[in-house]
């Protein structure tokens, strides 16, 4: 559905936004192949210049994989890393995004490699094989995520789709947030069973901040511990959050029942009123277009929760 209307969007967008670049509406074909060479950079990452539209993309970032397929660049993707489990048709391999192996990547003869961090000199190694590396660092805000959609669109020759995907996602999220009643609620976001959490300074925390929720992990300084502090059970109990979000349901089998069975947790308001929400770990930890699903889940939980 989306893919069918995407070209339409493209034309509309080009018509609407062509004032600064009037040459585009005459050159842009229906597939919106974009203009190459093009120089792109995700927020907080080095710029990369691509001479022509990449045809063999290797994605080593689950978030980037989801975005590439969402904006119609899926057919150009030849390999994705072992953690990229969405969408279904993504060509999963044993490649690792955590410790990328240039030789294993080169075997797929890519002309563009997308990673979420280059801590091992991957870009330099791949440059020697003539391959460009695009770094898509962890999005810190929703705006970062939208910007990455546009960057990936531009880099793959789907500029218009990238822009419309960013706009659509932004509009969807803004609408969901606007339609959700504002309540002063507190929440606890669980990353694992040892009570690692996120503060408002993280991407997930920023999403929930949009709803006006208060994070119990925010101490005097939400950026402390890199935004990922380990809380004590005592502190969680004393904070008595109205909502509990479990980002460790798939990985670690956590759900409302297992949470209620923890020592003392049955005294929590969220447990007693059924406001423990088991999230899809993947959706909860990626800055892909599926962030809308997370926002919707949070909105439902907020709406259900009595004031």
């Amino acid at each position: 559905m989306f893919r069918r209307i995407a070209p339409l969007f493209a034309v509309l967008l080009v018509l609407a936004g062509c004032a600064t670049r009037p040459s585009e509406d005459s050159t842009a074909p229906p597939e919106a192949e974009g203009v190459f060479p093009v120089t792109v950079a995700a927020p907080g990452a080095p710029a990369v210049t691509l001479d022509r539209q990449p045809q063999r993309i290797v994605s080593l970032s689950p978030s980037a994989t989801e975005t590439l397929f969402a904006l119609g660049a899926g057919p150009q993707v030849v390999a994705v890393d072992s953690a990229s489990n969405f969408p279904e048709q993504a060509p999963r391999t044993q490649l690792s995004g955590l410790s990328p192996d240039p030789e294993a990547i080169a075997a797929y003869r890519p002309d563009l490699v997308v990673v979420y961090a280059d801590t091992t000199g991957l870009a330099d190694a791949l440059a020697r094989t003539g391959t460009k590396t695009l770094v898509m660092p962890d999005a810190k805000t929703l705006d970062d995520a939208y910007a990455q959609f546009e960057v990936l669109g531009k880099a793959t020759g789907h500029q218009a789709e990238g822009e419309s995907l960013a706009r659509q996602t932004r509009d969807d999220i803004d609408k969901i947030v606007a339609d959700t009643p504002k309540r002063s609620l507190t929440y606890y976001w669980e990353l694992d069973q040892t009570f690692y959490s996120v503060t408002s300074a993280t991407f997930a925390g920023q999403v929930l901040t949009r709803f006006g929720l208060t994070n119990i992990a925010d101490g005097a300084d939400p950026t402390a511990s890199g935004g990922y502090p380990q809380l004590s059970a005592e502190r969680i109990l004393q904070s008595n959050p109205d909502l509990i979000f479990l980002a460790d349901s798939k990985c670690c089998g956590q759900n409302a029942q297992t949470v209620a069975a923890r020592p003392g947790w049955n005294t929590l308001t969220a447990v007693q009123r059924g406001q423990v929400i088991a999230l899809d770990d993947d959706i909860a930890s990626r800055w892909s277009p599926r962030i809308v699903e997370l926002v919707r889940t949070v909105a439902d939980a907020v709406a259900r929760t009595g004031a």
Partner: protein
Amino acid sequence: MPDTRTRLRAPVLVAGLVVLVAVLLFAVLVGASDLGWQRVLAEIWAQLTGGQSPLSAREAAIVWQLRVPRVLLAGIVGAALAVSGATFQGVFRNPLADPYLLGAAAGAGMAATLVVVFAPAVSGWVVGPLPLAAFAGALGGVGLSWLVGRSAGGSTSTLLLAGVAVASFLTAIQTFAQQLNTETIRQVYTWMLGGLNVSGWREVLIAVPYVALAAVVLCLSARLLDVLALGDAEAASLGLRPGRIRLVVLAAASLATAAAVSVSGLIGFVGIVVPHVVRMLAGASYRVVIPLSLVGGAAFLVLADQLARTVMPGELPLGVVTAFTGAPFFAWILRSSRRRFS
């Protein structure tokens, strides 16, 4: 030669116990959540006398279901690691020996990793799979070291070398399993740093029987350890069988270590530092070192855990706290007593 003339005098033990009780009480009164120590004290009094509780149900749960079991568990783990350390040092006549020697830590780490990697979503067990696996792994590691060491002659030095080899091998398996599933690395890593933040009464009940059994066996064997410290030939000349004594006390110490590891992860330095301090303060006889290590280890780890849960807004890994406080202290001990160890 250790000084075996010292006897455990009752006042020393009583003083140790008084300190331990004071530390336990302090740890229960002051915690990560700010309940007010007077109110917690009033709550304890109310529970003892059947009076009116000053706390809400949730606050009471914080005290009785989280804080009290955690403090007790810290004491049990500290006692287990310290007494195991004292035992290992005695058996191997090596002041640097620690409870994780002979592949206990490596076995526990390997088994815990295998569980996290291959059975990640196992839940609803009576006992969590992670402590169970760590316990089995620790015992397995020690058992394997024992078998390898014995087949190579069975002396203390071959046993130590066998432990090194077994530990390296088990660690390699662990690393390999982690590479198969990089997503689980943090879960294992958190466990390896050691901590008691998710502990409750269940963990206390898991650990108590093994540690209690080991403590009784080791206290009863203290005299034998004193004889063993003189040397195998001397022990044999007194009609004892060094090999058998070693097997019994090492088994008891390993059991206590495995129980501690299974509920708390890897917490270093308790087993080295505490027995050394005890020796400095009260003499080197195992009839002194064993019981005082139990008491001192408990007090030390309760205090260390107190730091771990209150010094920062979040939790600090307990293993980091013990290393922070224990390692410099240990270096200082080494320096100030180098003549004894050289």
